[in-house]
């Protein structure tokens, strides 16, 4: 295997993993309060928020990607702010990909978390309050540990979903090596240029990776259930 070929294989893979990792981390931070609010709030307009969060599941990635392209581009806020601030555009950059991935994978983080928080219920939380814990303390010492399977599910699904992302990346990120050329884009590129061998290698790698992640999640959930 020549150095170029290795770079062709592992460059996109490293970029995909980095994107998925950063996105998952950011999503867990953002989705946790959102999921908690969705689980506890009784405001009448909650379904509106739920629908907005779930939109990326339904919308074609091209639609999502198109809007993101417009919003992240240099001619329109908030993309223009970034341009003023850094002199670079968010579109066709790694940072832009991270933002797009966070939007695209948001429901895959929020929904498992919300389901887990729903399952926690109020009983244990009320008990903790009467035992002298502040709301914040109760959240971290009772709600989060009780919802642990939800966190695992959210992390694995966000990671895997970001790894498998194609349409949005194509729209927002294009195909710039080491910046936006992730595995799924590279595969498409290889197929376009009839380089089936390289497409096979990358596809197989992604398949194995996706399977390993899902297996990890199910095994971990099983362990928890039997503990």
């Amino acid at each position, binding site marked *: 295997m020549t150095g170029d070929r290795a770079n062709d294989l592992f460059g996109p893979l490293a970029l995909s993993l980095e994107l998925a990792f950063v996105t998952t981390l950011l999503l867990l931070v953002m989705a946790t309060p959102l999921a908690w609010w969705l689980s506890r709030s009784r405001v009448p307009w909650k379904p509106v928020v739920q629908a907005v969060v779930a939109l990326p599941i339904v919308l074609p990635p091209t639609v999502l990607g198109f809007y993101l392209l417009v919003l992240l581009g240099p001619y329109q806020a908030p993309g223009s702010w970034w341009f003023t601030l850094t002199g670079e555009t968010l579109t066709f950059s790694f940072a832009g990909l991270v933002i797009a991935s966070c939007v695209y994978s948001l429901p895959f983080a929020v929904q498992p978390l919300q389901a887990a928080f729903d399952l926690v219920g109020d*009983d*244990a939380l*009320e*008990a*903790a*309050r*009467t*035992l*002298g*814990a*502040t709301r914040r*303390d109760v959240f971290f*010492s*009772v709600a989060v*540990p*009780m919802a*642990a399977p939800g966190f695992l599910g959210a992390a694995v699904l966000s990671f895997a979903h970001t790894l498998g992302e194609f349409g949005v990346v194509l729209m927002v990120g294009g195909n710039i090596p080491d910046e936006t050329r992730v595995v799924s884009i590279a595969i498409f590129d290889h197929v376009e240029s009839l380089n089936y061998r390289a497409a096979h290698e990358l596809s197989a790698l992604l398949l194995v990776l996706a399977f390993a992640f899902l297996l990890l999640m199910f095994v971990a959930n099983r362990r928890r259930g039997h*503990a």
Partner: protein
Amino acid sequence: MRSASPGIEFAYRLARGDFRLDAEGSAGTDGITGLFGASGAGKTSLLRCIAGLEQADAAHLVVGNAVIDDRVSGRRRPVHRRDIGYVFQEPRLFPHLDVRRNLEYGARRLPAFEPRAFEAVVERLALGPLLSRKPAGLSGGEAQRVAIGRALLRAPKLLLMDEPVAALDAARKRDILDCVRELRAETGIPVLYVSHQIDEVCRLCDQMLVLEQGRVVASGPLPSILLRTDLGVLGGADAGVVLDAAAVAYDPADGLSELTIGGDLRLLVPGRHAPGEPVRVRVRASDVSISRDANDASSSILNRLPATLTSVRDDAAHSVLLELRLPHGESLLARITRRSLRRMALAPGDSVVAQVKTVSVRD
């Protein structure tokens, strides 16, 4: 002027759909106060208000010297700063923590954690063998004991208990009630105990509040409240009183213990009681009959107490409830038929003999 040791005073108003809570009352701090009423009377709602878990429309709560909810300023202490423990109907243990960490949860959030208090509670509730277990592996009775220990270790100024033994079998129930009574005596923490089972209240409580449709309709010492047969929940089949007696001797041949009330009245009850042990006896109105004859040896009834008839109350179409006074001032209730009342020509002021057929005992 009020007495030097202020008790617990509360007043809460709350509306939830059709249900209205408008409960105002007080309780002493030196015992267990039963909060008694039918299902849906608002017992749990009141308890939740006191714990700060409900947003009441109006709130007032004083525990000892501390004003927790102030109706004047409208200031209300948040749940975690009330120092009020709560044992729920379900144990509500934290599933991710083992028994030890569950017990320590509240104690760790105190300014000073007292390891000796921990050991005392663990020993009293027999939790030692459970400490490293997870809640999922506990039986209902074990889990509820952990919940009681967890609440106590927070060293609350008031302990609320909401039918904590409702889901348990009779033997477990008795064990836990006895534990609660002993722990209360040792710790001195006042307890508000919710129940819709009069037997539980009689076994456990010194004072009693009766709740009906969201209102406190009676409150005071247990023996006098039990005479309020005009209240739906205290009349009917369960009407009866409690007598506090002391064991004198045990007869192993017949399996009976002899008790005295006030030194001279004698009462035989089934079961073994050590001499000197205080025994509370529950006497149902339907287990008491009346005789005019002080020396009727032909009866199978062993317990014959001299009494004075103080009042005759309507009961059912065929029966009346008699209120009797024993020589030392204790009261008894007796249910007899209207026909017997007429035939014996009973009237208030008459001296009679109360024949107590069986007694249920708190041991």
